[in-house]
């Protein structure tokens, strides 16, 4: 698949401006760039789990979506698009539809890792021809920064607040991309906003045009929940990748591929430091927490490299 940055960026926007997402929201950046993976002329039905994205882009009577769009509920974006895709196949079979449609659904990590997990797993296992995109900002941001199973260890959230006897979220985050890869679907990838979006653009196009089920996990920082300086989002994403906290990889027909290996792996504290949700890790006496965090990042990175080396 050839890639031309200019051409990709010059495609018409499929999420119109004027919606109500926060300035600098990672979710919106993810959506606009995933939709650049669609070929011009191809139509799409966009699905959406309940969350910031839904309530801010389709507030009756306004919609920011240029394509057909369906929001059903919080936990069923996978099943809902399964039905839409089923309808497409049925109408095609009956000769009632000529146009080519692609099916892409967006969910935050709450709607994907947690409450929508079963519905997602079902849609992936049934191998519907659709792409499920998780814009992972590591907490329930729409309801006010509650922890999810995507929240990294030690993050300060409103349901894992840092306190005199609490260091934030006590558990590790779930590795959802690996779990979806275990469904043995045609295409799984993890990415974020780096390399002028080339990685994200290429993976989106691949996901959309691979027949069968595809899953994209996109780290999409939330300035409110992560408490960093809003304009620094690209630095945050770059540090996520350079520290190997958020590696770029894909799983194509079961084959794990590492897309990027930093020349010099940075310590994870470089990624954590700019974020207010990890402020307590940098207090004197808490060095052991940073060590534990680093250890987990290292373990996962080695594990990923092993998978990709086979």
């Amino acid at each position: 698949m050839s890639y031309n940055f200019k051409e990709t960026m010059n495609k018409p926007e499929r999420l119109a401006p004027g919606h109500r997402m926060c300035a600098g929201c990672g979710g919106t950046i993810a959506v606009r760039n995933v939709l650049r993976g669609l070929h011009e002329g191809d139509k799409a039905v966009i699905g959406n789990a309940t969350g910031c994205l839904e309530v801010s882009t389709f507030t009756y009577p306004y919609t920011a979506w240029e394509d057909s769009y369906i929001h059903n509920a919080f936990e069923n974006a996978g099943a809902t698009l399964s039905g839409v895709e089923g309808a497409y196949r049925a109408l095609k079979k009956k000769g009632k539809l000529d146009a080519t449609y692609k099916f892409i659904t967006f969910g935050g990590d709450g709607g994907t890792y947690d409450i929508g997990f079963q519905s997602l797993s079902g849609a992936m296992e049934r191998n519907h021809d659709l792409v499920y995109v998780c814009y992972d900002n590591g907490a329930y941001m729409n309801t006010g920064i509650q922890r999810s199973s995507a929240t990294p260890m030690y993050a300060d959230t409103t349901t894992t607040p840092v306190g005199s006897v609490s260091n934030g979220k006590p558990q590790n985050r779930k590795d959802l991309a690996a779990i979806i890869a275990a469904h043995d679907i045609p295409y799984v990838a993890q990415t974020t906003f780096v390399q002028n979006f080339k990685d994200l653009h290429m993976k989106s196009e691949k996901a959309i045009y691979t027949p069968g089920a595809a899953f994209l996990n996109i780290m999409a920082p939330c300035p409110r929940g992560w408490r960093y300086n809003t304009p620094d989002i690209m630095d945050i994403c770059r540090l996520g990748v350079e520290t190997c906290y958020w590696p770029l990889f894909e799983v194509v027909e079961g084959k794990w591929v590492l897309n990027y290996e930093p020349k010099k792996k940075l310590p994870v504290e470089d990624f954590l430091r700019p974020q207010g949700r990890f402020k307590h890790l940098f207090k004197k006496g808490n060095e052991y927490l940073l060590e534990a965090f680093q250890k987990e990042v290292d373990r996962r990175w080695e594990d990923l490299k092993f998978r990709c080396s086979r």
Partner: protein
Amino acid sequence: MAKRDRLSGNEAVAIALRQINPDVFPAFPITPSTEIPQYFASFVANGQVDTEFIPVESEHSSMSAAIGASAAGARSLTATSSCGLAYMWEELYIAASNRLPLALALVNRALSGPININCDHSDSMGARDSGWIQMYAENNQEAYDNMVQAYRISEHRDVRLPIMICQDGFITSHAVENIELLEDEEVKKFVGEYNPENYLLNPECPMAVGPYSITDYYMEAKRNQAEGMRHVSQVVLDVAKEFESLSGRAYGLFEEYRMEDAERAVVMIGSAAGTTKDAVDRLREQGEKVGLIKIRLYRPFPAAELAEALKNVKAVAIMDRSEGYTNHGGPLGADVMSALYRAHADALAVNYIYGLGGRDVRVQDMEHVFEALKQMIKEGDAGETYRYLGLRE
């Protein structure tokens, strides 16, 4: 040409669905409705239908996928019972508020707990305020006939609401009865093509479904749903008339059985009406003026028509196959009593809870109810209006 056959209620509904040949059928197994998707899957496997059959991982997903398919422009449906319906509760409201004409073949079964697989109406009664049309059957023939009529009602442009076609778990779903089937071509012609005006897969005009709507529009959306519901009764009657000319079988909002000069009446829903008809016949032979009203259309509730049908009755027993935990009776009791009150009716009314979790109701049980009504008239007082029938003391 009608074809005579011997079928269970589930098989009859599955055959109606084969004849309808819907576009998308997502389904998840649960007793006693499992056979409907099971029979249907064999139609798919043998190329007898064009339907996309989606064997999902839960009932929440079966209704979610049916909603997605319907919004996309396909004729869709699912089937379920009991906890399956409870699990899709949230989705029932979403289907109705999106004004999606889709069908649900519901085989009534008690809700847990204790877990019980047998018939009562607690599942569908809990969904009575969800904005779905609800239609009930006494026997297998009615289950089949209602399914054939379902989409004509649900898809009608004045209605556009989802429809629940209910039958009693095991009592009709699994019992085999003689039944008359319509020819495939007749059903196809009667149901017609589904051509929605607005849908997701319309290449001419994209559509957005499922908005966030706050205080400035939510109430109007709900009122519009109610507007759709207001047209249902007339559409049900019109469709029934057309169906009668095709099949010779007449349907209304409810069935009046030997009500012409009845002084005592029973109002009920579902298969126990068959038992009650036997009780009515026996008592009529003894010269007793008794009758039965069997509700077919429960949502919307035909309150005015029902009060009219009951206007000369001196005492009425309203039979609920589910508890309401109001401390004064079940949901049908509340609806009928409210209808009588609005019509300034004089009838004494009593509400029975019966048949929970498949508890058998016999002809003598219903004779006992008519006897109790006689006693009420004699005493000029209804006495305790919240009673249980067939309870082990």
